[in-house]
């Protein structure tokens, strides 16, 4: 009988706190979104699972000696995991469309307005009683507008560790919601005629240009924004391995096994930050709201910049492609293509949207570097 009592005292039933049950429900919700709705399943499935594990009463997953404790400390505390993901993404990215039409970088720049405007908005929320964000917290939240998961995790882990769970969940959720969030904004800011605009075919880009490009990006980052070099450096390493054509086996490994293994553990580690005491705060609701705002402002800024560039340029520019400037590769480019096809069944914008799309990745990495330099530790 005594043994049964000991067992009973170790059960969750005898130890549950309401917050833990609620957070497990959040974990199950993330699993549902990942599996049934296919919202960024590669990340949201491990995050949701990690959220369940971390809230097990007496489970000890996030205490020293627990599995998630190790995974978090080794992978995110050190910033190694997001950097490895970024290297893999670099190895998966083809900059051809951007090199063929470099002005697309301006769309990637404009879309970062979502980040900086949201930072301002988060500070404004300090006027709301009960809400309070420091500049560092505001910057970590604003990066959601960069629509880039590893960048958000990298910055949040350095500026506001305790908000990491909510920020990562918001970033991946909104990236999955791009097909729902973006089209209304894109349609509201453009006329049907503008959406019908077909764009000139892109020139072919030589292998040598593609090899030099990542080195040029790295070089400029070194010169002007060293705080962005971890992110940009690993991204460029991945891209150089891809384009150089001489280290095929390393490039394939970075694109496949290495990114897969890292994704499993990164997801679990992010999930381990979804503990009830860190997540069930009024800040989390504000983060979710600010994230949606950031995405929307970024989309709008991209579209408006594309309209402006179209007026000034002799080549025609379909303003829809500005929406791809938020990054969210390749979902945003696909959404642009879809909205374009709705307006004009012969209008294939996918390749033209890939330019601003990858420019958005660079843009948000640059923005992260600026935030690190100005409000960093």
């Amino acid at each position: 009988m005594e043994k049964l009592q000991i067992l009973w005292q170790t059960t969750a039933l005898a130890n549950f706190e309401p917050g833990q049950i609620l957070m497990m429900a959040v974990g199950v919700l993330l699993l549902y979104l990942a599996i049934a709705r296919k919202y960024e399943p590669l990340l949201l499935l491990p995050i949701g699972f990690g959220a369940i594990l971390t809230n097990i009463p007496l489970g000890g997953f996030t205490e020293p000696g627990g599995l998630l404790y190790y995974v978090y400390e080794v992978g995110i505390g050190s910033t190694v995991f997001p950097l490895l993901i970024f290297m893999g993404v670099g190895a998966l990215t083809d900059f051809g469309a951007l090199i063929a039409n470099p002005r697309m970088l301006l769309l990637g720049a404009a879309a970062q307005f979502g980040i900086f405007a949201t930072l301002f908005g988060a500070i404004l929320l300090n006027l709301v009683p009960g809400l309070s964000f420091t500049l560092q917290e505001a910057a970590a939240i604003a990066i959601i507008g960069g629509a880039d998961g590893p960048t958000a995790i990298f910055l949040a882990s350095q500026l506001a560790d305790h908000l990491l769970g909510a920020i990562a969940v918001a970033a991946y959720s909104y990236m999955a919601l791009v097909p729902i969030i973006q089209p209304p904004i894109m349609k509201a800011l453009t006329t049907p005629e503008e959406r019908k605009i077909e764009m000139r075919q892109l020139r072919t880009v030589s292998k040598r240009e593609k090899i030099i490009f990542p080195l040029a990006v790295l070089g400029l980052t070194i010169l002007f924004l060293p705080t962005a070099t971890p992110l940009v450096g690993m991204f460029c390493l991945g891209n150089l391995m891809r384009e150089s054509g001489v280290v095929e086996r390393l490039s394939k490994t970075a694109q496949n096994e290495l990114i897969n293994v890292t994704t499993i553990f990164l997801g679990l580690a992010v999930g381990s930050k979804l503990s009830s005491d860190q997540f069930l705060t009024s800040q989390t609701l504000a983060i979710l709201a600010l994230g949606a705002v950031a995405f929307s402002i970024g989309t709008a800024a991209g579209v408006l910049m594309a309209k402006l560039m179209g007026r000034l340029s002799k080549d025609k520019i379909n303003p829809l492609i500005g929406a791809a400037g938020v990054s969210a590769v390749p979902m945003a480019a696909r959404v642009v293509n879809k909205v374009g096809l709705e307006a004009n069944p012969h209008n294939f914008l996918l390749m033209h949207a890939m330019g601003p799309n990858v420019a958005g990745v660079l843009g948000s990495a640059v923005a992260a570097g600026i935030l690190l330099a100005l409000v960093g530790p």
Partner: protein
Amino acid sequence: MTDDIYSVLLDAAGLLLVGMAVVFVFLTILIGAIHLIEWLCNKLPDAPETQIKPQVSGTQAEAISPQVVAAISSAVHQYRNKKQ
């Protein structure tokens, strides 16, 4: 207290301006760099480019591992044999 918030708001506004400015300046310089790369690549003789090409396809062929090739040929053979 409110003074404090205003000062932070000012900070945030400064970040907004400086941040967007630096993002635009940085990516504009990158536009220039890309044009420079294009110009350089057109300027330089094509020789090294063609030198690279055959070997690149060689390494791509390498990426398809011998076992896959073995699997394929055996599969094709088996398929052929079954057909007959």
